[in-house]
């Protein structure tokens, strides 16, 4: 099943994490063109309010995409992230409602999130369930638990200062965006400068090669799924802060947006390809089209068609270019 969605790694990103000009420049150019086009066609787009709103909207998907990127680099997939967004929002809200300080409840929620990721890692490494199925199972279980815990009701009346995390600005920049960028730099560093990052790429190109090169798969698999869930849990906390409540249905199909951002950004479901900057740009492009489309009054369903087409074009163009290069 997973084979159907796999594409060949794109050309120009074959070198470990280091983006060669091709894809990143193209993505940058698309972002610039979108911004120029939308600024000139919509009077609202370039206003500080809209831009800061856009950045907040993008941050949630952008954070999840960074975690998803690492999983995809190991040739895996994590479908449980959307459910983790929901459970993080609910757990954190319930804890605060029970009187816990948010400075305790938030770290606790992150730990729970990461633990769910390690559970995914156990299913995948110890039980040898393919990542697609393992995380699909987790998604379903977690969604159910969220409904049981919340009684399918929103958890409101949260402390005021909790809501300020997401709505706050630092030097006029939305704090959510700053959090996202901090994670971006951390992920970039992890992927390009640490042994763990190297391990992810090597595992993504072949688990057997990794093992015979002395890499222990277990800690690495736990780490990558744990990180992905950790990022998703953080996104879940931020989302519930933005809404000032825990929403049991939050994060539905967020995993697909995250996968789309990674793939538009040059990630390959074959593994061993992709970059943090690509995932960030992919998330920005998707959200900008949504935001701009709304401002221009384009039918939201038509926007969905456009974004779907964008995913196919981004991957398709690279595939064709690669096939051409292969034929010489």
């Amino acid at each position, binding site marked *: 099943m997973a084979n159907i969605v796999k594409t060949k*790694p794109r050309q120009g990103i*074959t*070198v*470990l994490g*280091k983006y060669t000009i091709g894809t990143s420049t193209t993505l940058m150019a698309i972002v610039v063109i979108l911004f120029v086009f939308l600024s000139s066609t919509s009077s609202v787009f370039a206003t500080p309010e809209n831009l800061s709103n856009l950045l907040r909207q993008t941050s949630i998907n952008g954070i999840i995409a960074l975690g998803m990127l690492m999983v995809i680099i190991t040739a895996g997939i994590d479908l449980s992230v959307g459910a983790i967004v929901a459970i993080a929002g609910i757990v954190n809200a319930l804890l605060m409602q029970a009187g816990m300080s948010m400075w305790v409840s938030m770290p606790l929620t992150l730990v729970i999130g990461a633990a769910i990721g390690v559970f995914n890692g156990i299913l995948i490494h110890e039980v040898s369930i393919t990542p697609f199925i393992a995380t699909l199972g987790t998604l379903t279980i977690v969604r159910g638990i969220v409904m049981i815990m919340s009684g399918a009701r929103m958890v409101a009346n949260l402390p005021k200062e909790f809501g300020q995390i997401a709505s706050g600005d630092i030097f006029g920049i939305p704090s959510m965006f700053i959090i996202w960028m901090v994670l971006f730099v951390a992920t970039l560093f992890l992927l390009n*400068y*640490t*042994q*763990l*990052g*190297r*391990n992810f*790429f*090597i595992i993504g*190109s*072949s688990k*057997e*090669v*990794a*093992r*015979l*090169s*002395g*890499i*222990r798969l277990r800690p690495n698999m736990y780490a990558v799924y744990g990180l992905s869930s950790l990022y998703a849990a953080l996104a879940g906390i931020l989302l519930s802060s933005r809404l000032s409540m825990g929403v049991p249905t939050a994060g539905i199909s967020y995993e697909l947006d995250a996968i789309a951002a990674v793939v538009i950004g040059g990630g390959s479901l*074959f*593994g*061993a*390809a992709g970059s943090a900057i690509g995932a960030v740009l992919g998330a920005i492009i998707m959200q900008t089209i949504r935001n701009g489309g709304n401002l221009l009054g384009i039918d939201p369903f038509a926007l969905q068609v456009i974004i779907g087409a964008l995913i196919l074009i981004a991957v398709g163009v690279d595939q064709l270019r690669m096939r051409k290069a292969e034929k010489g």
Partner: protein
Amino acid sequence: MAELIAARGISKAFPGVRALDQVDFVLQPGEVHALVGENGAGKSTLIKILMGVYRRDSGTLSVKGQDIQDFSPQAAQSSGMAAVYQDISLARSLTVGENFFLGHMPKTGWGTIDWALAYDQCGKLLRGLGLDDIDPRATLSSLSVAKQEMVAIAKPVFENADILVFDEPTALLANEETEILFSIIRRLRSEGKGIIYISHRMEEIFAICDSVTVLKDGRHVRTMPVTDTNPDDLVRLMVGRSMEDMYTIRRSPLGEVALEVEGLTREPRFRDIGFDVRHGEIVGLFGLVGSGRTEIMRAIFGADPIERGEIRLDGKPVRFTHPSQAIAAGIGFMSEDRKNQSIALPLSVRTNINLANYPAISPFGVVNQTAEREAARTYIDRLAIKTPSDTVAIRNLSGGNQQKAVLGKNLASNSRILVCDEPTIGVDVGAKSEIYKIFEQLTEEGVAILLVSSYLPEIMGLADRILVIYEGRQMGIVERSEFDEERLVRLASGLQA
């Protein structure tokens, strides 16, 4: 009826290699015809031409009296030819019965598949062949490898093929199954069918075959009735070739014992393997495909578990449960399956050279990029790896340069013992001799090398001693002064020297 197959003057060249040169081959009805020769002698090329997989460059071919111009695997099949190859080419997730009928399942009057009939017919045939214990409804992958092989053998019988090729059919079989195979072959022979039998095992050839054709270096050496020859003569005909200079390297003085193996056992793959390798020495491991040589190498490297036995490094007993421990102890491993086991294809040459080196150059988990670049540059220069830069993906390099990068990977992680499984597989001649030169330098520096090779000139040229393995059993250790192709081939075929 005339000859089933009459091939005359068959030649076939691949870029750079003359695989077959004017080879004649005739198969009579009711004949079991052995095809023997060393690896690379041209056996598989000949079979593939007969089966329509390859197109011959010249020569004539007739099948059952019909001249064949253009042949294809489909045409071969419809002329009643079938081949059972060493790697079982059946659909593993389908049942035995489905595999028998592949694409031609019997239909009921409603146009749906008549499962009862299919399994009934299949079961009847299996029982007739003495394979009562194979359930036609069993999924192929649920059967043991030997049983799968028996299914593969039974399938052409079921299809009523009258020209059958068995390529090393017993490699995966136990004794009783080999007996069943032989009875199947005898039955086919009595029905006037023709069988081409490829095997390295002398005793089988003399047990079941009527005539034998020897190929060597793509040439037809001789065809004769097996009654006119004996195992010794046959081996001599197969290998009688002088050694080439290419495979001779300078010998280094030997140091202390680097690696000692005693009573190493992993049933059913190998048992009671014991040998040692000194610093500066190359010990060869010779055996047929499937003899257990690769498994022995993997066990020493900690890639597979062992049941019994001891491994000592510089006199100290070690027990590895993961390759990382072997690497830390200074053992390097070059797998025979480079693309799936040794290199990370989509990653850069730099990363690949450092593949086993990261723990050493990553204090607190942060990769020292200078050391990483340095290691890559060092080994690209030292091993003369031809690459536009060290950031190029290794998949863009030639096989020889990839293999040199694998050597670089092992040297970068400071291997003092190098375990090399077919290090020159898929490597061109030029890179081959470069790799031999590197081995020469390494032994001078006191590196101990354990070398698996199924190519005799290579292993005899490089090794100081050769350990011969036959079906997981140690047949003996031959000293360099006593190297002799015939003797090695005899040992590797399970015959005493």
